[in-house]
């Protein structure tokens, strides 16, 4: 059974809404800047991809503001925009025929930090009733389900940066197993002082101070990544169901998905990214030759960039496929990263253009990558492969394809 994408919603550091984001990507406008949420001047890493133009009260019902973390507000807004894009009125559909599958890596972290502070500085009676769900990793699935009356099979998955693609893969599985419409995607945000230090503790965050040069995936000057916030939500529908309700537009098909895991640390066995890409292509019934562009995981850490370059060249041959990483304009969004890349891939399909990897200028020759950088490249795109890796060994891959009118 084919599963189509009929709606997109984006909350990205360089653009709110699909078109604002896509314009920024094509124009190379970055969302990376000095962290403004708190005084980070004493910290070694101070650049982040922040969503600065999101006025929650304009996008989230007032009733939900006291009980939601900033990440959940992103999720609610992106979900609503995706449904609007798909012109779906959930009230007109059967409640059990709609599911929600989301991913987050850090949950409602800023919210919970505030409650930890109340507990320890003032006492248990100061902890909010909302802490019991505003923090937990299922919060976005639950809130979206309630907001739109979706009672079908639903879930929340966590696999660090790979989790967002896993959510899309599981949403597709859910649709194939009988749920006509599944809202899916991922968001993250942890830019409170504690959440930020957690990012830093990963040891992979860039200490660069130039927003245009801090996160340089696949560059000889790669020195770590810049954390970002936000993400994307997509409406997935069984192709037949979308047709039956007269869906006015199909962005593309989620044609393939796979996930693998790396061998234990220290094992001589090879890492699993290549296998995830190959399994996803096989799942789509396609071969490497069918792929027009690869949206890379783009860790921005030299050893990890090299490993990814090796995986890509193993599948496609040296310089065998255009590769890009527009996330260099947003930072890495953890669970939001994969879904945002899938949205970007679908827009590439729509407009016949491969967006550039920002910042990166000097790709080591022995990476043997055809990295699109400098400016976007016009190209007919009918098939795109999206890759994501999560810390500790998660590898996921999604194949999107064009759907002819």
């Amino acid at each position, binding site marked *: 059974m084919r599963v189509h994408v009929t709606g997109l919603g984006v909350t990205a550091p360089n653009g709110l809404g699909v078109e604002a984001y896509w314009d920024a990507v094509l124009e190379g406008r970055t969302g990376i800047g000095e962290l403004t949420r708190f*005084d980070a001047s004493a*910290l070694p890493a101070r650049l982040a991809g922040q969503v600065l133009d999101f006025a929650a009260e304009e996008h989230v019902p007032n009733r939900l503001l006291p*009980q939601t973390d900033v990440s959940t507000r992103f999720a609610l807004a992106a979900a609503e925009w995706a449904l609007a894009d798909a012109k779906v009125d959930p009230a007109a559909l059967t*409640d059990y025929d709609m*599911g*929600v599958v989301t991913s987050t*890596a850090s949950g409602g972290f800023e919210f*919970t930090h505030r*409650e*930890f*502070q109340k*507990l*320890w*500085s*003032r006492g*248990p009676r100061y*902890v*909010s009733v909302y802490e*019991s*769900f505003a*923090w*937990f*990793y*299922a919060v976005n699935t*639950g*809130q979206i*389900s*309630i907001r*739109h009356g979706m*009672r079908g*099979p639903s*879930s*929340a*998955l*966590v*696999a660090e940066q790979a*989790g967002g693609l896993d959510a899309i893969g*599981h949403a597709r*599985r859910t649709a194939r197993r009988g749920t006509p419409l599944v809202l899916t995607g991922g968001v993250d945000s*942890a830019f*409170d002082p*504690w*959440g930020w*230090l*957690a990012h*830093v*503790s990963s*040891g992979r965050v860039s200490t660069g101070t130039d927003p245009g040069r801090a996160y340089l995936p696949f560059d000889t000057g790669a020195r770590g990544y810049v954390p970002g916030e936000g993400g994307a939500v997509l409406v997935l529908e069984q192709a037949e169901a979308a047709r039956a309700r007269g869906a006015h537009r199909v962005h593309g098909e989620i044609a393939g998905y*796979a*996930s*693998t*895991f790396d*061998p*234990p640390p220290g094992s001589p*066995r090879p890492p*699993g990214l290549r296998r995830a890409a190959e399994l996803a292509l096989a799942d789509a019934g396609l071969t490497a030759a069918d792929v027009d562009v690869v949206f890379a995981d783009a860790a921005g850490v030299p050893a990890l960039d090299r490993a990814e370059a090796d995986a890509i060249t193993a599948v496609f041959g040296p310089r065998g496929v255009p590769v890009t990483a527009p996330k260099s304009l947003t930072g890495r969004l*953890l669970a939001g990263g994969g879904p945002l890349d899938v949205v970007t891939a679908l827009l590439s399909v729509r407009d016949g253009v491969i967006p550039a990897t920002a910042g990166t200028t000097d790709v080591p020759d022995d990476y043997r990558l055809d990295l699109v950088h400098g400016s976007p490249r016009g190209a007919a795109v009918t098939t795109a492969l999206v890759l994501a890796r999560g*810390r500790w*060994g*998660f590898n996921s891959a999604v194949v999107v394809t064009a759907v002819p009118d």
Partner: protein
Amino acid sequence: MTRRVVITGIGVRAPGGAGTAQFWDLLTSGRTATRRISFFDPSPYRSQVAGETDFDASAEGLSPREIRRMDRATQFAVVCARDAVRDSGLDVGALDPHRTGVCLGSAVAAATSLENEYRVLSNDGEKWLVDPEHLSPYTFDHVVPSVMPAEVAWTVGAEGPVTMVSNGCTSGLDSVGHAVALIREGSADVVLAGASDTPITPIVVACFDAIKATSTYNDDPEHASRPFDASRNGFVLAESAAMFVLEEHGSARRRGAHVYAEISGYATRCNAYHMTGLKTDGREMAEAIRAALDESGVDGTAVGYVNAHGSGTKQNDRHETAAFKRSLGEHARRTPVSSIKSMVGHSLGAIGSVEIAASALAIEHGVIPPTANLHTPDPECDLDYVPLVAREQRVDTVLTVGSGFGGFQSAMVLRRPGTAGASA
């Protein structure tokens, strides 16, 4: 042809015992393992009782390095995973890493480590800004809990699909349900699946205090968890874990594995009603039960035992009773229903897996665990809840259910191997 999924190994850590055998002994004796909280001074809290697990990580075989880097919930998961593998008789060296996966459930994951680290980083909440000088190298691992399934994967070298399912209090059912789907669709042949939560830490106790969801029988901790009893006043927070070896039935049979049960059906629905509240009619849980039975290819009359969510909150036990009547009809009145939370408490995301273990063991041993502390049933809870004393009774088909914040309602059907329609 549909691939069928069976349980061939079980590992449990729960209050009152160090392993699966002790867990089952506790349940069938009807003893309770809830007590006054000893992990910290509970006196400032509204609810001061919990199901604590006596867990000695070194004695369980974890190395000092593993103990240092793993949160308590991860330690529970890893120890249970090793137990489950041993129990299954699987030769880990003979596993195909590419065909082996992990699905781990947890609701609050590394809450304990996060809280300990927060207290140090913030000098007990002194300032909003925290002190980078005291940053632990493991903070990121505790904020992003997918390190938990990663640690489990490393115990057997799994390189297939590995994920974490975090659906609040139904995580333990949903992670196993997710694993079943992976095997059925052919993404894996063996999956280590289960769930772990160790939430007995001040922030979690405080947040359930705030919504008044937990029991206040502080002067009688052993009898604080009273599912279906008229005097129940909330659930008792607990910590536990259960992990399973799930295998495609044919390959389990070929290697001559002992099969506890087939997982023949699973479904989940959302109530889209409220993040914490339940409607009284049980509609969505009933729908999940109906769908799980349907997937099993049996009707409600096949169910010989219902392992209830039975949390012991006022609203849950009525909601659930309504759901059983709605889905099983008259058969609900003839079917034994019990809640092991009366004995081991409610370990949030983990309990669904612990209850799957209890369900599989009920099939294995022909004993239905009782609902402890049930002396005077709520008049609105009018089913056979197997009060106080375990019942020896052959059971071929078990229904186990869960309900959680966010509105999740999940149901799973387990069947005795060899039962008509079940795998032999």
